[in-house]
């Protein structure tokens, strides 16, 4: 068994028969941060009593994740209310805040927000004043690295709630090759009742695809891809022109390749309905698919060589080779220094 059982369970929960490897399915789901999602998908399906109890527990977990995510967003809103800065929620928190289908059963880690680059200093100061703290000293190499090259400042952690906030000013590191149009991401964002904002629907897909394909090593990819599946279904159903808009936004953000690949993978794994012209399979897609499914019935990661290849790729995506060499050199030297 590989991650395929999990994918099949999500895609078609009723198709699981009585001789399903339930323990394997649960372990794989937990490893992929999809336990809550699986539990929601399988609500009402015929499962053994122990599995039903596991799913009930996972649904409660998801309810708590929702409470935490929305509360963190609210506390950030309060801290930033006086700044008159647009604050755009990203990822899982955004899904919960807007009650999108993609939020069903979803786990949420840190709070991710997007603000204009020009306002980043003021935002950081306001957060520090409201009880968040830096993890590392302000002038360290890591902090400098973040400020110069990354798409976010170094994460802050709240001193009593112990939850992290990532403040982004764009959706890809500055050193990555595509340069998304951060200003239009914010300009076209949608305001929620609370005053917080989320990205426009097509931009949410572009961000998710950027995160999955154009940044990172695909760890946790099955969950990110499930997000994309749920979002695509919901947005396409609500807007007949959605696919055209998605193409336009993908091009504008220089992420057409990533978006198209993400859509193909979603169609392939989760049977997302996509138009002709968005489906044609590319050779490298098989590698992405294999990487996404590299999980066994014990919850272990498989395909070490393939995972390593994607790991190397993730560094390559973020940095031109000379920069990477210099970065690794600095880190190595720091590691060898006493104290």
């Amino acid at each position: 068994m590989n991650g395929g059982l999990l994918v099949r369970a999500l895609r078609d929960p009723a198709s699981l028969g009585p001789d399903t490897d339930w323990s394997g399915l649960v372990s794989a789901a937990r490893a992929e941060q999809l336990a809550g999602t699986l539990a929601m998908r399988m609500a009402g399906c015929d499962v053994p009593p122990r599995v039903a109890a596991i799913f009930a527990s996972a649904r409660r977990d998801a309810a708590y994740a929702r409470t935490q995510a929305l509360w963190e967003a609210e506390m950030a809103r309060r801290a930033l209310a006086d700044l008159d800065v647009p604050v755009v929620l990203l990822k899982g928190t955004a899904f919960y805040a807007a009650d999108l289908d993609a939020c069903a059963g979803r786990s949420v880690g840190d709070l991710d927000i997007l603000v204009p680059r020009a306002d980043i200093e003021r935002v950081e100061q306001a957060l520090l004043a409201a009880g968040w703290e830096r993890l590392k000293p302000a002038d360290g190499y890591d902090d400098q690295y973040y400020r110069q090259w990354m798409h976010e400042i170094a994460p802050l952690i709240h001193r009593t709630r112990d939850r992290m906030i990532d403040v982004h000013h764009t959706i890809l590191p500055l050193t990555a090759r595509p340069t998304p149009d951060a200003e239009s991401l914010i300009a076209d964002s949608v305001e929620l009742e609370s005053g917080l904002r989320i990205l426009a629907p097509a931009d949410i897909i572009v961000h998710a695809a950027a995160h999955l394909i154009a940044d990172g090593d695909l760890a946790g990819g099955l969950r990110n891809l499930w997000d994309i599946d749920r979002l695509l279904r919901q947005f396409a159903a609500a807007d007949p022109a959605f696919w055209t808009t998605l193409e336009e936004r993908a091009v504008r953000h220089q992420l057409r390749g990533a978006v198209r690949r993400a859509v193909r993978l979603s169609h392939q794994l989760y049977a997302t309905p996509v138009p002709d012209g968005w489906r044609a399979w590319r050779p490298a897609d098989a590698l992405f698919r294999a990487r996404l499914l590299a999980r066994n019935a014990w919850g272990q990661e498989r395909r070490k060589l393939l995972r390593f290849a994607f790991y190397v790729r993730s560094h390559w995506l973020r940095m031109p080779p000379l920069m990477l060499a210099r970065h690794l050199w600095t880190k190595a030297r720091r590691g060898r220094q006493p104290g």
Partner: protein
Amino acid sequence: MAGPTYIADDLYELVTVPLDGLSLVYHEPSGATHIVAPPAPEILEALMEGPADATELLRRLHARYEFDGDEVIHVRLGELEEAGLVRRA
């Protein structure tokens, strides 16, 4: 000095259990549990009447209780604000 105007969450969002002089407070929106000592429970109750700044709050507290925490009212409000139990209007 009056300072900012504060709002407390609605009554239904707080579950309070008094336990020998202190109060356990479960706050639904955050899922957090707080153990609060006087005058915090009294301040929260007084704010249930509606938004108030420190001056108005003290007026309500004096009207309801034998209250003598005037000097530290801003500190208490700051603590409640950081805990998320009150917010600025």
